[in-house]
């Protein structure tokens, strides 16, 4: 199976590991990730107002390019996934918005929501299958207690993101089980870390991230996994309580035995 892949700005710079481990693991699972040509940054946060058109065009261009190749669009960063999936949804359900967007697009690039947006975790669950993944694990992460941090971007708005139950998700816990580790459920797993406040009011980012990390520690977690570079940064840099925060793809690569470059 071959996907169009949208990495986004941070996965090419500060979060290279998130990207590299994902590509290597996908290859081991028979999945090819073909990077969208000349992709542009999604902007990092979705602007819900429907009169914001220009800020959504980078997402639309990536969606149109995937459509032209007949591929689903694979995302990995939680923020990119949220922005692109919501943009796609708006095009599908809001005619006026769709018309305005297409007024900006070239006549050969008209786009009407044909592309399916798939997060890497959804690909693991729905295409590879967690049972198959489990059978391919060579280094099961036994005795490791892992807290899956969803944050807000993967799950909300639930009706649009439709990845999992927004209040009681299990996709990341099922992933943790598939790689042989033990999931730890903690109260703050789908509450915001305050990452968007990092540059505006650090004290908010500090108090939110401390609540998240201490909640995971209280339940006995050895580490937290995330799909979001901003969550990772914020939970590591701004919380007082210390707990390793790791990209889920790093543990995946480790379990599949492809972590070290051959």
């Amino acid at each position: 199976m071959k996907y169009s892949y949208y990495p986004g700005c941070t996965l090419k710079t500060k979060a290279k590991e998130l990207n590299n481990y994902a590509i290597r693991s996908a290859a081991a699972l028979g999945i090819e990730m073909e990077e969208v040509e000349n992709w542009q940054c999604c902007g990092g946060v979705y602007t819900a107002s429907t009169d914001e058109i220009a800020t959504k065009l980078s997402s639309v261009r990536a969606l149109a390019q995937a459509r032209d190749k007949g591929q689903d669009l694979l995302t990995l960063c939680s923020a990119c996934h949220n922005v692109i999936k919501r943009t796609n949804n708006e095009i599908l359900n809001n005619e006026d918005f769709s018309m305005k967007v297409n007024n900006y697009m070239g006549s050969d690039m008209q786009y009407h929501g044909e592309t399916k947006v798939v997060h890497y975790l959804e690909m693991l669950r729905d295409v590879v299958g967690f049972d198959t993944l489990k059978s391919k694990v060579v280094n099961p992460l036994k005795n490791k207690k892992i807290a899956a941090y969803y944050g807000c971007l993967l799950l909300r708005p639930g009706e649009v993101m439709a990845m999992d139950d927004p209040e009681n998700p299990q996709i990341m816990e099922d992933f943790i089980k598939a790689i042989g580790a033990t999931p730890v459920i903690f109260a703050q797993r789908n509450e915001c870390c305050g990452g968007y406040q990092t540059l505006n009011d650090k004290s908010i980012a500090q108090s939110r991230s401390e609540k998240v990390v201490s909640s995971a520690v209280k339940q006995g977690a050895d580490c937290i996994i995330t799909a979001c570079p901003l969550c990772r940064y914020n939970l590591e840099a701004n919380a007082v309580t210390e707990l390793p925060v790791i990209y889920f793809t790093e543990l995946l690569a480790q379990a599949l035995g492809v972590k070290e470059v051959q």
Partner: protein
Amino acid sequence: MLNTKISKEDLERISGVNTRKCMKCGKCSATCPNFDAMDYHPHQFIDMVDKGNIAPLLESKAIWTCLSCMACLQRCPRSVEPAKLIEAVRLAVVRQQGENRLAAEDIPELLDEDLPQQAIVSAFRKYKK
């Protein structure tokens, strides 16, 4: 000077929120993980916009400190989606000349070595036009 003549109709149009759908249960504010850092809470945004009492919201701290986490939007039993209205009030401010919250010149001194690009682009998207 901040133009405070923003109407209820403007905000409902930008956000797509219908304030009349609110049944004033307060669940949005009860679930807001950032309650303490907001001078006006999500149910107040809905109520005050509904009544046309908009100027205090335009000058509020809450339009900047809202996390954009969508907890209020997800958990509102009437699908009023307060987070969208808060965003619309913020947009009604930053779209005015001279009302940006963040300037490109401010960025270098806020940087640290590990800060992901995502933090910078999203801050610009939220706080600057």
